[in-house]
């Protein structure tokens, strides 16, 4: 009996009138935890009852404490008939179970009813007395901290980053149970809410157990998702990164550390291996071992309703390994390595983090992704009873008969995909995947599972505590090395996994870098960026015939490779059009609907100083004889060139001109390549001229040989840049802007459009979808115009296809204001700085790269494109039009690499070094005057930080799931009114919970699901929303300033963990 939960019901306010006669309410409260229920007295005739109850005490296992939510129900007492429910409050008491988090939950909670929404508020106090329990075989994992934040939380230091943890739990969906046919919608919704709450609790507990087994104490980048598979069940799955975190004792000591990057820079160890070929030896041995000794069978052995893919251990063996590692000392690593290499502790060397401690990320290989199409109904066929009805739950299932084996199936699916990801990463010469995420898209019985991440080489220092000593000496050398390392290719240049186009790093001149770099992570803080970044989106629709089951799955599988290909082409084109050379935060979402597939890729484009200047886009025509056509082409070409020039100006991309001597002769192949392409495409002379205009840079050729291609070019040009004063990105921070002021506005915007079913062609669809997204962005810019100058950060688009002709787009982002004048200054400075640095570096390091140059230059890194193209595309049976437009190797690879069910490897790499010196200084100066914050205001942001403020405490994870339903849709203002009110209520409930924990903000907030269904004919609608984030306490930087300025700049590379993210 290791815990005592105490609850006190204080008062209520603004209750609804439940008794029409008196216009009052006789309210009382039921407090339920597990199977125990307490009741307060009835407070007669009041809308603002004062119960002031005694302390209700629940004596419970800590396992239950983790799984169960506290359930508070407010009712209206009725002497003669059944008591009417007013509404409920679910309180997750998990935050009370960590030692450092909240100690009490106390505050006003909105009373929520799934039919009526928020109906008044209730004041509750909750406490937990936890008794220490040393039982090692316990099933609970109290004390493991969870963070949604995908970087090391601000007031912590990462001692070890253990790696990937995952878990999934499956259950029947109450919405589809037979009982749902006879119970009220309210009862059904509540059953669902409660179940999901329970399942999340269980999931979190199980993940916690895995973390304990790995000897970690926290999960960072925790992402939990629901798959509503309809009649085949409800899956709750989660992934995260297990870490051992140390709390930084003095927050003030930490602050100056990040404000003085110049110092910190020297401290940061950097595992820069001069020879790219030997990178694979960099990682610690366990990593390597497991890479090669993977045995797939492992992931299938697990216990009943949970998945164990990661550890592949039963809890018992886990304990064993734990004690082995416990011996400690220098032998620990070795010991563990020996004992655990067999257990493959890091079966999947994945990290859900998107930002890392300095020095953690050594090289980045590029984006790896995998998709798989699965049929849901197949699993359950034997148990399927299949009664069709006309109620909401139209199928009757016998659940118990197959529940037990379900997690295995799902686990197997995910294991398969993860395996794929891992092998992709290996092909890129990387031993790890960072910025890893998983998602699903479900339509009827078809489910697309997707996973993506960024292949990377990591510094082993953070992965194993035993290796720190070895790193010490390394550090000295590392100090000398440059900071463009992460751009350098991790794979073997002579044995490349794909035909890449390499040049010498524009920063250090000694390593090879690719021409473009795509990643799913945030921009490393030490990377040198020129100009500003911008949001780049690729949008795509493909019609699909309606089909059933397997035929449907096959159709989707066949479409997927084309979708991926097109999405990547679009991204590449748009990136070039912006004059940029790298994408960060890339997220490609493929959504499946009844009769179409939608692809939406969002990323933040930047110009990395270490990568070569991107070439322009050339248009080539197929029919050179036609004069007017020629004219048209040249006209288009001019427009494109103008756009590129305009964009360069807009985003302030003025890469320093580096003299030829320093660079050495550039790799000559770009020109050859373009010529090659040109001859292939039989285009005319103006291309040559244009080629010249792009100088020696690599040019990107677009061939206009059919209307399709025309469309593409047009769509390229239709993307309107944000109005002046606005910037947007989907990463945490906007590259090139450092002086945030403290005003933030987080928002969610949802749009649903109905397509006219008449002329559904791919083009029309694409246009509709494109317009939808563009208009949505325009609306956002308009709405937030009062915040100018500002930047929309972490713009997160989600597409779903709720019905045949409906497209739903949900956007969550945060608008942050910044100080324009200082922004200009800072950029300038950082450019200057990087220039200086570049030249000094070049001088210092000249001898070394020269040697390398002579070696590698002759060996032409770019094989004849033409042949490659031909062979690749003809093999894969790509339509001629597309084949011809394959102008970059990236698409090639994709085409080749794609097997039916999966995606592709995407690659790139890059750059360079930090500009934090300038940034840091300015940031110091720009500490914004704090807006007078009113008590009770709770800020919400999808970012991991709050501009102009310092997070002093993490109070725990917020993970909430709500259902709202209405049978009076028109009366509530139609679908818009209904959803608007619901989202506002969700925000309110999140804020109330945070405030009750004693916090004043939610960071890393994310709306993971917003499933909206309507039936206007019946005047009904239903919506499910799932949100999560980290509740925190923050203090305005201005309040801290006095303290921090007195603190000497303490060393500690550790303490600068992630501080830079806030710049």
């Amino acid at each position, binding site marked *: 009996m290791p815990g005592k939960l105490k609850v006190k019901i204080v008062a209520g306010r603004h209750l609804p009138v439940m008794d029409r006669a008196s216009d009052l309410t006789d309210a009382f409260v039921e407090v339920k935890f597990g199977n125990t229920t307490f009741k307060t007295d009835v407070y007669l005739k009041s809308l603002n009852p004062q119960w002031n109850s005694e302390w209700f005490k629940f004596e419970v296992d800590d396992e239950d404490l983790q799984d169960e939510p506290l359930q508070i129900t407010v009712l209206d007492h009725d002497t003669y008939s059944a008591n009417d429910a007013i509404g409920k409050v679910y309180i997750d008491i998990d935050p009370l179970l960590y030692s450092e988090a909240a100690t009490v939950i106390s505050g006003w909670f909105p009373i929520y009813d799934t039919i009526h929404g928020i109906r008044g508020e209730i004041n509750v106090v909750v406490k937990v007395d936890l008794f220490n329990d040393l039982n090692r075989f316990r099933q609970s994992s109290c004390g493991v901290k969870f963070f949604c934040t995908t970087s090391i939380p601000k007031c912590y230091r990462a001692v070890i980053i253990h790696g990937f943890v995952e878990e999934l739990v499956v259950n029947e969906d109450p919405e589809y149970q037979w009982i749902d046919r006879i119970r009220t919608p309210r009862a059904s919704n509540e059953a669902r809410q409660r179940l999901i709450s329970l399942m999340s609790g269980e999931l979190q507990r199980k993940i916690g157990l895995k973390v304990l087994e790995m000897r970690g104490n926290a999960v960072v980048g925790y992402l939990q998702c629901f798959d509503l598979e309809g009649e085949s069940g409800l899956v709750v799955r989660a992934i995260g990164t297990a870490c051992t975190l140390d709390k930084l004792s003095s927050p003030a000591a930490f602050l100056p550390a990040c404000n003085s990057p110049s110092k910190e820079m020297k401290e940061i160890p950097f595992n820069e291996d001069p020879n790219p070929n030997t990178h694979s030896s960099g990682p610690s041995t366990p990593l390597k071992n497991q890479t090669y000794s993977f045995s797939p069978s492992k992931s299938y052995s697990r216990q009943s309703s949970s998945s164990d893919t990661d550890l592949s251990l039963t809890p018992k063996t886990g304990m064993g390994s734990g004690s082995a590692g416990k011996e400690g000392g220098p032998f620990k690593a070795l010991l563990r390595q020996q004992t655990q290499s067999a257990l493959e502790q890091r079966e999947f060397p994945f990290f859900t983090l998107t930002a890392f401690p300095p020095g953690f990320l050594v090289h980045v290989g590029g984006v790896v992704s995998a998709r798989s199409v699965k049929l849901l109904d197949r699993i359950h066929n034997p148990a399927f009873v299949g009664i069709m009805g006309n109620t909401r739950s139209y199928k009757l299932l016998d659940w118990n008969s197959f529940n037990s084996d379900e997690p295995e199936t799902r686990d197997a699916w995910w294991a398969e995909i993860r395996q794929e990801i891992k092998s992709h990463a290996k092909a890129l010469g990387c031993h790890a995947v960072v910025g890893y995420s998983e998602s699903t898209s479900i339509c009827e019985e078809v489910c697309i599972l997707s996973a993506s991440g960024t292949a990377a080489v990591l510094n082993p220092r953070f992965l194993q505590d035993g290796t720190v000593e070895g790193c010490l000496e390394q550090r000295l050398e590392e100090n000398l090395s440059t900071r463009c390392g992460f751009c350098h290719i991790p794979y073997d240049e002579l044995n490349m996994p794909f035909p890449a186009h390499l040049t010498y790093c524009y920063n250090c001149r000694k390593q090879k870098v690719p021409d473009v770099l795509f990643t799913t992570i945030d921009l490393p803080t030490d990377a040198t960026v020129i100009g500003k970044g911008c949001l780049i989106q690729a949008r795509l629709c493909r019609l699909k015939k309606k089909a059933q089951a397997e035929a449907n799955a096959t159709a989707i599988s066949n479409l997927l490779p084309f979708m991926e290909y097109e999405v990547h082409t679009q991204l590449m084109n748009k990136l070039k059009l912006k004059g940029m050379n790298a994408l960060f935060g890339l997220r490609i979402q493929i959504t499946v609907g009844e009769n179409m597939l939608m692809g939406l890729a969002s990323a933040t484009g930047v110009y990395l100083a270490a990568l070569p200047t991107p070439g322009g886009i050339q248009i080539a025509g197929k029919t050179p004889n036609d004069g007017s056509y020629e004219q048209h082409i040249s006209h288009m070409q001019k427009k494109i060139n103008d756009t590129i020039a305009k964009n360069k100006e807009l985003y302030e991309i003025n890469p320093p001109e580096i003299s030829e001597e320093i660079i050495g002769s550039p790799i000559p192949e770009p020109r050859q390549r373009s010529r090659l392409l040109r001859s292939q495409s039989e285009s005319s002379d103006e291309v040559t001229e244009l080629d010249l205009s792009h100088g020696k840079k690599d040019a990107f050729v677009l061939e206009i040989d059919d209307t399709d291609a025309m469309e593409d070019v047009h769509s390229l040009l239709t993307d309107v840049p944000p109005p002046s004063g606005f910037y947007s990105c989907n990463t945490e921070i906007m590259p090139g802007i450092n002086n945030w002021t403290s005003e933030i506005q987080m928002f969610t915007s949802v749009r*649903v459009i109905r397509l006219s079913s008449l002329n559904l062609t791919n083009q029309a669809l694409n246009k509709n979808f494109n317009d939808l997204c563009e208009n949505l962005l325009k609306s956002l810019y308009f709405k937030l115009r009062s915040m100018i100058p500002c930047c929309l950060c972490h713009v997160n688009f989600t597409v779903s296809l709720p019905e045949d002709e409906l497209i739903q787009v949900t956007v969550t982002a945060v608008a942050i204001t910044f100080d324009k004048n200082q922004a200009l200054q800072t950029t300038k400075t950082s450019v200057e700085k990087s220039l200086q640095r570049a030249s000094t570096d070049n001088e210092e390091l000249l001898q070394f790269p020269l040697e390398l140059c002579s070696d590698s230059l002759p060996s032409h890194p770019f094989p004849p494109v033409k042949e490659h193209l031909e062979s690749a595309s003809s093999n894969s049976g790509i339509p001629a039009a597309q084949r011809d437009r394959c102008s970059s190797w990236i698409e090639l690879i994709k085409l080749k690499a794609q097997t039916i069910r999966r995606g592709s490897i995407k690659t790139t790499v890059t750059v360079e070094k930090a500009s934090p010196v300038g940034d840091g200084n300015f940031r110091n100066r720009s500490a914004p005057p704090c807006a007078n914050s009113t008590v009770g205001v709770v800020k919400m942001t999808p970012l991991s930080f709050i501009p102009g403020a310092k997070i002093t405490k993490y109070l725990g994870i917020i993970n909430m799931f709500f259902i709202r339903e209405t049978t009076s849709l028109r009366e509530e203002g139609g679908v818009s009114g209904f959803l608007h009110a619901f989202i506002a209520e969700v*925000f309110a409930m999140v804020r109330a919970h945070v405030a009750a924990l004693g916090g004043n903000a939610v960071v890393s907030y994310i709306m993971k699901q917003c499933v909206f269904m309507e039936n206007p004919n019946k005047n009904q609608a239903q919506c499910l929303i799932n949100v999560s984030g980290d509740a925190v306490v923050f203090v305005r930087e201005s309040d801290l300033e006095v303290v921090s300025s007195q603190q000497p700049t303490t060393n500690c590379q550790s303490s600068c963990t992630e501080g830079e993210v806030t710049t």
Partner: protein
Amino acid sequence: MTSELDIFVGNTTLIDEDVYRLWLDGYSVTDAVALRVRSGILEQTGATAAVLQSDTMDHYRTFHMLERLLHAPPKLLHQLIFQIPPSRQALLIERYYAFDEAFVWEVLGKKLSKGTKKDLDDISTKTGITLKSCRRQFDNFKRVFKVVEEMRGSLVDNIQQHFLLSDRLARDYAAIVFFANNRFETGKKKLQYLSFGDFAFCAELMIQNGTLGAVDSQMDDMDMDLDKEFLQDMKELKVLAADKDLLDLHKSLVCTALLGKLGVFSEMEANFKNLSRGLVNVAAKLTHNKDVRDLFVDLVEKFVEPCRSDHWPLSDVRFFLNQYSASVHSLDGFRHQALWDRYMGTLRGCLLRLYHD
């Protein structure tokens, strides 16, 4: 491609003041969009009409949801659904309870009942204020009236406390409630030259001096009703007009004092008895509800108009009224000095305010 659903929800609720005004003014979304387009906002921001439409809809929806809370402003402060900075909350409330002078004119002194509401259509046509806006304003009056009707204590304080209005607006509402409660006739053609401000000023004076709360602050009764006892007592003032000697004496006292100081002395002298009789009779008649309602009509008829037709300057009116009310103290046969002072104190203020073109 039609938009089925289009919403924007901010963690901090966005309030666009311009759209709020349009909403308060009762414009439909379409009209509001048209008005916004005309304001040149599209050119300023480079937005499209569709964006404007969506934005306007969004704001309207938000306001619609907020309206329920605005009906009980303290709720707006304590609710959790919309996170709105305090300054914005104040703005929302103040604007919501603001009213049009043209509208208040039409309903001032009328019973705030359903029957009157039917007339809102006419008022809307007459004033050019949209029916929606009329409804809101009327409902505001009625709501404030209902809430403070039975309350004890200061009327202005009660209104401020329950509706969180600024001092200025609370005073205006006090006047409206006071007028509605006593049903003063304000609609007569003769009174057309008066502004709401004039009435509000008078109402405030009357609340201060003529109600129960005014005499005895211990007895914290309502501010809304005129002090019945006081009205009853004022019958006693009749003697000032009825008793010929007293009237003559009064006249001579006033004339003596004002001789040479008044530009319109002769007109005053000629009219003194009429004016005095008028004022005294107004006081004496106030026992009847009907006469209370006609108070302002009577004052204008009996005093303002005669003076105005003789072109008294305002300063002369002031001199006259001061002297007229002070001289009574020298009338030996008159015993109701206190009563007179209370009456004239209010009346003098009112008349001076009412005396203009």
